[in-house]
């Protein structure tokens, strides 16, 4: 079953101009690390939203 909210993250840039690279390190992460990553990304996005709201009011 898909996660709710943020359901997928594609990490990193792809400087390879011929195909899309897929990171292997995710296979070494624990469920806790993955959960923390999703929470962190959600936090970053909400911070962006707050600073956008603040700019609008200023």
């Amino acid at each position, binding site marked *: 079953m898909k996660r709710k909210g943020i359901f997928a993250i594609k990490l990193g*840039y792809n400087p*390879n101009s011929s195909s899309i690279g897929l990171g*292997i390190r995710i296979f070494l992460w624990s469920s806790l690390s993955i959960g923390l990553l999703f929470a*962190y990304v959600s936090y970053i996005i909400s911070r962006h939203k707050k600073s956008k709201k603040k700019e609008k009011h200023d």
Partner: protein
Amino acid sequence: MKVRYESFGGIIGLEKPESLIFADKSFMKKMGYLHSDLWDAKQKRLSAPTEIHFSLTGECNQNCQHCYMNSGPNKGNEDLSFDEVIAFVDEVAEMSVFHMALGGGESLLRSDLFEIAKYIRKKGMVPNLTTNGTIMDENIAKQCNIFGQINISLDSLSLSQEQMRDTVDINTIIKSIELLKKKKNKVGINSVVNRYNFGEIENLVQFAKKYKLQDIEFLRLKPQGRGKLVYDKYKCTPEQHLEFFPLLIKLSKKYKISLKMDCSYVPMLCAHNPDKKLLEQFYIRGCFGGDMLASVSPSGDVSPCSFASPSHYKANEFKKAWNQSEIFKKFYTWEEKAPEPCRSCPYLEISRGGCHVVTELVTHDFFAPDPDCPRVVEWRNKK
């Protein structure tokens, strides 16, 4: 932060951390993105690619045996002009593409490369660069700050006779890496794997670790361009294909460095029964052609990916190509016509039938299974 609506909700592009975030409608609404017509549409396919692979020139100062672009000296005379490039950048910016991977040939040979890269940034996209690492000085390294990341092509540290790439003194590559890093660039390596350099993968990883590189991306050899002529001689064996993913896991653990495999290797990954939920969480898929990805050649031909045959559309009709090209449609609807053993494969939705370019060029049947997929090899052997 850049946001684009999709039928499932939306995609959010971040630069810190560098990522694309796939969110559902409720998350988008929480972020203040309240509605899009796309939310009422039933399409599964993305509204636009997330990245474009743009070969800016056919010109190259190398003449590698396996070059899928057939690049080389004096091959830049069909390159798009600066104005044509800019018009294309404008069109894909309107479609909210997130990233552009620039290459060639050797795009550092284009005198307007950095102007193009600056314009891509100005239009809200992140340019990234692939280079052969032979053209580098302090000034160029400083200008490379415009890129998200720069990857240098390097298949081997040794100068063996079986090397497909043109002979380049490794010290030239090291100097380029050092210059780029001195100017605070993110640097990685692109490495095409073949049966003769397979045994050197660990050496390459050690090299990347030693020079503190961002990552190494390992690419499967494709029988395209000049690659067609060397494919049978150089392609990995079935045993190497099966060994590849466990090897990368082992090396990633040992050297604590980010390793990547290109999308055409997903069948080799799926052969090891990875956790499907994990693959979905990190949007790991096989063929992205005509979905997350589209490509433009130096002369402006638009394709679902850099290795695929071009559509009948040129760069100035990119949106039309995306929406109407039958060649694009073949790629993103492949699963609907999946043959066995793919149809019954638990990883069909993830692997998407593997690399359709390899399949078409080797079997002459676009809708056949990937001939190098270990599950396909096993299925054929049982038959």
